[in-house]
């Protein structure tokens, strides 16, 4: 199977997964106890008012009719209107996506910048003090809840030292420095545990590569040690690292939700939690679909990247 056909097949597969995810979410959201009309109107609303609102929201129709209508709208790119704010769900998602993506993006960057050099050093200097320091720190990193790291950082750098603001978010359009100041602590909170896992992965995959025959040969031929590590070693070690980075995206996204709460940032995570409390079906559906969509396609990207870095892998073989 050629590369192009392989990618087409994978994209089709990802779309099917997203379709099933959307369907599951549609029915799961309707299984959440609590009538959205009642929640919206408050405790002392009359039965007539609630019935009228239910009618208006389309909740009186049979479930399968609601499902077909909803699917039809989604295919046209319409995620519906929020029950709570009367805003289009798509608009709401675009509004909250920026802070979340900023934190996740910077967090991932921090993780990679720490993990890859630390992992390589650790593998090259195996069982020396550099290795012990790096593995110990990474171990501590993966053993802390990200939101707790956030609280500790907030107390030290925002509350005591006052270097950065403790709460809120400022868009990068209002200046890169204020933007960075608002997202640096949340990004560290999200990135450090993620970096710990990546560092361990880099170390073990680098160590494996260093023990391969061709690496020994290269060294025996008298090639400069450092050059070998970077040119041959890293190239091969990167393959599993990239895969794991993709797999762990879910961990990172999960971390962002709680970290947004700590820093009072109006992001995707906060929107999701608030929407569940308000029984805002369209908003919950939109948020979950968006997160799964990003997740599935990032993994697809990683998969395609993986196959193109390593031409030895046969296309289409299932795991």
């Amino acid at each position, binding site marked *: 199977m050629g590369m192009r056909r392989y990618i087409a097949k994978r994209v089709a597969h990802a779309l099917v997964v997203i379709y099933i995810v959307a369907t599951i979410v549609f029915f799961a959201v309707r299984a959440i106890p609590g009538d959205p009309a009642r929640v919206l109107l408050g405790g002392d609303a009359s039965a007539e008012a609630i019935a009228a609102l239910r009618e208006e929201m389309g909740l009186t129709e049979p479930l399968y009719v609601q499902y077909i209508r909803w699917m039809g709208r989604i295919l046209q790119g319409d995620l519906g209107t929020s029950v709570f704010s009367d805003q289009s769900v798509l608009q709401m998602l675009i509004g909250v996506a920026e802070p979340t993506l900023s934190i996740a993006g910077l967090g991932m960057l921090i993780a990679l910048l720490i993990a890859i050099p630390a992992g390589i050093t650790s593998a090259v200097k195996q069982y020396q003090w550099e290795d012990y320091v790096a593995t110990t720190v990474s171990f501590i990193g993966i*053993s*802390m809840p990200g939101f707790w790291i956030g*609280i500790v950082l907030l107390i030290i750098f925002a509350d005591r030292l006052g270097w950065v603001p403790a709460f809120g978010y400022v868009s990068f359009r209002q200046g890169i420095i204020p933007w960075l100041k608002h997202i640096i602590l949340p990004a560290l909170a999200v990135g450090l545990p993620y970096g710990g896992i990546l560092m361990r992965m880099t170390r073990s995959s680098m160590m494996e590569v260093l023990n391969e025959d061709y690496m020994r040969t290269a060294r025996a031929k008298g090639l400069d040690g450092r050059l070998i590590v970077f040119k041959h070693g890293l190239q091969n070690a990167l393959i599993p690292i990239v895969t794991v980075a993709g797999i762990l995206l879910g*961990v990172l996204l999960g971390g962002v*939700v709680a970290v947004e709460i700590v820093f009072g940032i109006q992001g995707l995570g906060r929107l999701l939690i608030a929407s569940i409390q308000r029984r805002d079906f369209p908003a919950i559906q939109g948020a*979950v679909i968006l997160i799964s969509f990003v997740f599935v396609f990032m993994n697809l990207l990683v998969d395609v990247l993986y196959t193109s870095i390593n031409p030895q892998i046969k296309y289409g073989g299932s795991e």
Partner: protein
Amino acid sequence: MSVSDLVESAFSGSSESGKTFGIRSDLLERFIKTIRRDLRAKIGFLVVALFGLSAIFAPMLAPYDPMSQQFPILMPPDPLSANPLGTDSFGRDLLSRLMYGARISLAVGLGAVTFGAVLGILIGLFAGYYGGYIDDLLMRAVDVMWAFPWLLIAIMLVAIFGQGFWNVMVAIGFAYIDDFARLARGEVLAIREEEYTMAAKSVGLEDYEIIFEEVFPNTVAPLIVQFTIFTARAILAESTLSFLGLGVKPTTPTWGALLGQGRGFITQAWWISIIPGIAIMVTVLGINLFGDALRDAFDVKETGQT
């Protein structure tokens, strides 16, 4: 000694007894040896034992009732006072709350992984052993699960079924089913064609007998490692859910809930949110250390699933 050597020696060793071709006894021996020899395992085991015991015996060991509001509020930690770890905003003793919190946090963590492991291993064993369309069907289902980040699954399940001890446990464990299914399936595929499986088949054993008595025991080593590492993850997950107010019950003291209650007092009383976090960190670190030592002892490859 690698796993294949281990399998081989176990195969030749136990087939003499004619009862089982598995490697169970060897595994237990290795387990004990690891704790004896490996410093990481020792530290990890000690930490887990310490926190585990103080959780189990909290009613006897805790100095005060975790719910009683009998002290001045927001007292800072002072090792020599009546409240060595300070008090919270309601004047409750933090040390007592921490010890009771360990009960829920550890139980939910262990329970969640047990739930995910039992279902996942069953799915993986059957998918791997039978192959064909059963495998396809089960693995496609697992693929779909994989498209949801764990927190999303947990939040949705708690929203649907409500808060509470068992619900939170299942909500967290649900996300682990696919991880265990993948691992178990991979192991089964690797040993399905091995001699002892073939031997069992030729003797005319039933499928379920082969799966549970021959195939499963030989997948145990990597599964134990994964179980350990995932317990650490589940404890972190419980703390996240409780922090978000989606945990066992807002009023029940769990480590995550204690941490969440301290959030409003970060500037006046740092200890309310910092100390439970340290408890979480030390426990999770201990379990991770133990898991890492086991991984080396059982010669299981690191997959980055930590």
